[in-house]
């Protein structure tokens, strides 16, 4: 052997069965890049995101909860107020994390960082990029959710063993919001456009049976809120953490599965038309 440097390995490109022109089966590399950049720059910010729902839980659940006491939920059960809003805050945290990662972060990368142009000049396809970014958002959301679950456990707000099922629920919720959020972001051109995302998020956060039951509202408003995704998330997580599990919760799951399918299709199509056409 005379050569001191090994010949580079031949680049290997998967040809997955699905979407061969859009997907190189390498979403992992997109995730690795994301983790690396987070580790190098803003991991503390990422960690700090964990505290926001905890502050809300302490203030609203325990502070305000002392005025409210227990709350009646459908089926005639009563639940302490803190145990009522904690799962809602968990669902909200999943939504916020996923939406932030898939909208603001993606918006910057698309419009300022020009990151995706570089990625798509390699064998990676738009589906790899979309999937990679979304899985990264999920990973982050999952870490928050685990932290929050521990807090809930310590405060005695997990009322049943089924609470453990809240974790996969959170992943499902985050996946749905992230896939949809990224698709929508691909249409955004300016910061003003991005502000409209907050206009949808804020009412959803406050009105989706987060802090009080839907029965407060008139009929038409209940229907409107039940059409929004966050309500399904709140109800799903709440069912598991309070242990009041019903078969109707399958509808929530179905809602998110459909949302994921639509969201992923939208996102992949948009990335393709933005970067490859």
């Amino acid at each position, binding site marked *: 052997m005379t050569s001191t440097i090994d010949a580079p390995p031949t680049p290997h490109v998967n040809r997955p069965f699905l979407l061969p022109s859009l997907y190189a089966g390498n979403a992992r590399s997109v995730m690795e890049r994301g983790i690396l950049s987070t580790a190098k720059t803003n991991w503390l910010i990422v960690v700090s995101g964990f505290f926001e729902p905890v502050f809300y839980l302490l203030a609203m659940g325990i502070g*305000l909860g002392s005025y409210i006491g227990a709350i009646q939920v459908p089926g005639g059960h009563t639940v302490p107020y803190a145990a009522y809003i904690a799962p809602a805050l968990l669902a909200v945290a999943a939504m916020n994390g996923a939406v932030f990662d898939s909208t603001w972060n993606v918006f910057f990368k698309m419009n300022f960082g020009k990151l995706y142009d570089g990625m798509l000049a390699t064998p990676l396809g738009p589906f790899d990029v979309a999937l990679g970014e979304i899985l990264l958002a999920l990973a982050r959301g999952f870490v928050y959710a685990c932290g929050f679950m521990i807090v809930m456990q310590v405060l005695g707000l997990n009322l049943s063993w089924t609470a453990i099922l809240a974790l996969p629920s959170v992943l499902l919720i985050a996946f749905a919001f992230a896939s949809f959020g990224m698709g929508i972001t691909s249409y955004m051109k300016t910061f003003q456009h991005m502000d409209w995302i907050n206009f949808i998020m804020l009412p959803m956060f*406050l009105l989706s049976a987060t802090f*009080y039951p839907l029965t407060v509202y008139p009929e038409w408003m209940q229907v409107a809120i039940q059409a929004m995704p966050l309500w399904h998330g709140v109800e799903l997580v709440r069912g598991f953490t309070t242990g009041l599990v019903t078969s109707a919760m399958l509808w929530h799951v179905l809602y998110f599965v459909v949302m994921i399918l639509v969201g992923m299709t939208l996102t992949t199509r948009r990335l393709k038309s933005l970067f490859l056409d």
Partner: protein
Amino acid sequence: MTTTPLPEERIARLEGSPADKAIQGGVKPRRYGSLYVAETRLRVMRSYLQTMVATGVGTPLIYLYALGVGLATLVDANLGSGGGSQVSYLIFVAPALLCSAAMTTATEEFSYPIMLGFKWNPTFFAMNAAPMRGGQIINGVTFAVIVRLVAQSIVYYLFMLLFGAIPGPYGWLIIVVGVLTGMALGTMLMAYAVRLEEDKGQFNYIMRFGVIPLTLFSGTFFPLSVLPVWLHWIGWISPLWHGTELSRVLSYGYDEPVWLSIVHVTYLVLLIVVGWILARRLAVKRLNK
């Protein structure tokens, strides 16, 4: 350092000279500079008008409805009266919501936009290369934010009337208190932002560990007395707590000693004055390095 000012007689001798023209050229910028800067800032805000109107109208509507109507059903049903006082939860929480909205807007206006003007799109340096001085730039920016806060608080107040959240005759004064609350935190934040050379997510931390906890633990959604005594200091240092308590006095005659109301006003004004002066000094320093 040789900074001998030009003697008066020499200026007189330069009548009609370039120096004389320069001195004339400096008169208006020196006198009205702050207003010129405010004019620019309002013009910039106009390009965000859509978002601002949507926030200005949407925020009070949603918050007053969600908390003052929705959540109120739980609180009132349980206590008969809200927040440990004699009034309904809507009346209790509404003034806090107005003050908290003002604080949020001020946080927004005095963080990234300041950093933008000094660093990412250094328009403050452009103003300073024109005849504007650092202090005037800070004044102008501050005036423009005050205009926005006043407009936003008026809208909030009108929604409060609509929801029937203001029983007392002096309720309109909480518009002023709201602006003071926003400015108290805002000018301090501005002073910090003026100094900030590099954004490493500091504003994120300030939001997460400053503004959000203040919003939640300043006697906004429930009185400070609910918290354990060792957490009461959060209220005492929080401009939001001082603003909210004062608003409650004005809105529905919340019972507190007069000296405490005086403390509220004094504290808010003090923060504004200190923050403003500090921001002006630091701006001059940064612009004239």
